[in-house]
C-alpha cells in the first residue's frame, strides 16, 4: 500500500489505531442467556456497562487479554441504563475520555461480545440532546446519537472519537427503537453516584400536575417573567407533597431555588441531594407566591418484570430471558 499513501490511507490507519487503543479498555460482559454484551473499564477494577444486559446474578467479565473474572454489581441506574461493576481483581486499563463531543465528528461504535476481538462500526456524532425522559420516568440529563450501527452485543460498549477516546456509552436498552449514547460526563457522574450511594438518588414528590400559563398578575407576584408553571391536579395520599400541605390548585413555579416551568425541569431537579432533605417548593396559591418546605422521599424502583409495561416502554427494546 506504500505507493498509495495519502490522507485517506492515513485516516484509515488512524481509525484502526483508535480501535486498538480503545480496545484495551473494552471487555466482554457475560450475564445473560443470549450472547454476551460489552463493558468499558473506567478505572482499574471498575467496569461500566448497560444495566439491561445484566440479567443473571452471576456476572462474568472477560478482559481483552482473555482473563476471565467474576464481577460484583455495585449498582445500576435503570433510567440511563447504566450499571457499575467491581471486578474480583484490580485489573483493566482505564479508557481515555473525551468530555466535549461535537456534532459531525467521526465516531466509532465498538463492542466485544465475543472472544474473537473487538468489533467496530463507523459514523458520526449525529446529535447532542437532553434532557430526555427515560421510559422509567426519570430524566436523562444529556444524550448523544450516532449513525454508527450498533451491532448485536454492542450495548454497554463505547462510542469513541477518531483518537479512541470515549465519547459515551452505547445502549439499545432504552427502548426508543434505536440506540442512544450516554455522554462521558454524565456516565461518569452516574458511575460516581453508584459508587457512593449504590445508585442515582431520584426524588419522589407525590403529585400529578399539568402545565399551565402563569397569569400576568402572578408574574408580578413572582417578580420574574416566567411564562408557565405546573398546576397540581392531584396529591397522592401519604406522599411528601401531602405531608407538606401541597394542595390541588397550587401552581408549582420553583423548586429548590430554581424556577420550574415544565415537567422536565421539575424531574431534572428532583434528584441527587434533595432526596431525604427538606426542600423549598415555590408555589402560587390564590395568585400569591408561597414557599412550602417538602421533605423529598426517594423514588422506589419497581422490579424489572413490573416495569415492562411502563408507559413509553417497548417490550422488544429489551433483552428477553
Amino acid at each position: 500500500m506504500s505507493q498509495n499513501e495519502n490522507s485517506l490511507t492515513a485516516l484509515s490507519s488512524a481509525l484502526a489505531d483508535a480501535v486498538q487503543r480503545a480496545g484495551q479498555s473494552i471487555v466482554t460482559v457475560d450475564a445473560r442467556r443470549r450472547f454476551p454484551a460489552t463493558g468499558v473499564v473506567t478505572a482499574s477494577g471498575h467496569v461500566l456497562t448497560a444495566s439491561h444486559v445484566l440479567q443473571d446474578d452471576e456476572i462474568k467479565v472477560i478482559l481483552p487479554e482473555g482473563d476471565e473474572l467474576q464481577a460484583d454489581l455495585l449498582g445500576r441506574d435503570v433510567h440511563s441504563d447504566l450499571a457499575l461493576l467491581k471486578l474480583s481483581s484490580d485489573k483493566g486499563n482505564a479508557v481515555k475520555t473525551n468530555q466535549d463531543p461535537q456534532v459531525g465528528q467521526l465516531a466509532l461504535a465498538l463492542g466485544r461480545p465475543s472472544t474473537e476481538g473487538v468489533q467496530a462500526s463507523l459514523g458520526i456524532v449525529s446529535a447532542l440532546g437532553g434532557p430526555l425522559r427515560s421510559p422509567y420516568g426519570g430524566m436523562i440529563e444529556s444524550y448523544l446519537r450516532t449513525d454508527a450501527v450498533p451491532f448485536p452485543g454492542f450495548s454497554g460498549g463505547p462510542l469513541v472519537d477518531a483518537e479512541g477516546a470515549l465519547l459515551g456509552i452505547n445502549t439499545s436498552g432504552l427502548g426508543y427503537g434505536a440506540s442512544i449514547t450516554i455522554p462521558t460526563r454524565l456516565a461518569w457522574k452516574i458511575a460516581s453516584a453508584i459508587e457512593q450511594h449504590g445508585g442515582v438518588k431520584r426524588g419522589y414528590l407525590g403529585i400529578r400536575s399539568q402545565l399551565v400559563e402563569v397569569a400576568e398578575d402572578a408574574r408580578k407576584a413572582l417578580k420574574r417573567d416566567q411564562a408557565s408553571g405546573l398546576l397540581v391536579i392531584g396529591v397522592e395520599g401519604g406522599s411528601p407533597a401531602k405531608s407538606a400541605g401541597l394542595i390541588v390548585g397550587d401552581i408549582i413555579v420553583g423548586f429548590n431555588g430554581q424556577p420550574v416551568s415544565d415537567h422536565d425541569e421539575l424531574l431534572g431537579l428532583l434528584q441527587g441531594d434533595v432526596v431525604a432533605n427538606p426542600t423549598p417548593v415555590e408555589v402560587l396559591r390564590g395568585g400569591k407566591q408561597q414557599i412550602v418546605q417538602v421533605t423529598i422521599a426517594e423514588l422506589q424502583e419497581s422490579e424489572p418484570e413490573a416495569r415492562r409495561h411502563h408507559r413509553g416502554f417497548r417490550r422488544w427494546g429489551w433483552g428477553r430471558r
Partner: protein
Amino acid sequence: MNPLLGTEFASSLARARPGVVAVFGKRFGAGAGILWNADGLVLTNRHVIGQREPRVLLADERSFDAEIVALDEEVDLALLKITAENLHAAPIGDSTQLRIGQLLFTLGHPWGQRNAASFGVVSRLDNARTRGRRGLIPIIRTDAKLAPGNSGGPLLNAAGEVVGINTMIVGGDQGVAIPSAVALDFIEKVRAKARILAS
C-alpha cells in the same frame, strides 16, 4: 486535517472502478464482478451465475460472453474468462493485513444502480463454517451498506485495492465479504489444475 481528504475518497474509487464489471448470469437481475487481470479473468460470486451463459459488461460499456472457468460452491466463488483487448484490471490488495476500524469501500450495482459506492469500516474479522469439507474460512464483516447487485463486487481498502468479494448481507445491516486471500487461493488452485490438465 488535509483539505483534500474528501476528494481522495473519489480518487481511491477511481483506481478500482475500471476493474468493476456487471455479470448477467441469470434471467433477471445482475451481480457485480472483478476484472482480476488484463488477460480477462473475472471473479464473481457463484450465486450470481445461473443457467444462462454469463455475459460480462465492462465499466467502459463493452459487453462480452464469458466462459465459466471454475465454480466453487463451497466458498461461493466463480471464475469467468472473457476475450477482449485493453482490459484494466482492478488492483488487488492484501486482505491478511486488514485491521478492525480501517476504512472500506464497496463498488457494485445495488438494486440495479450501476457503479454505486458505499463506505464503512472493517467491523469484524472472523471465520465462517462452510457446508463442505473446507470447514472454516476467514470472512470480513463490514458496516458498509450492501444490497442485491453488490454480490461478486469488490470490497476495497482506502487505497482502492480489492481486499474482499462482497457476498452476503446479514441482519440487514452487516455486509460479509470473502477475503482476497481466499480468492487468490481459489484462482491459484484453478490454475494449478489447468497446468496439470495441459501437461
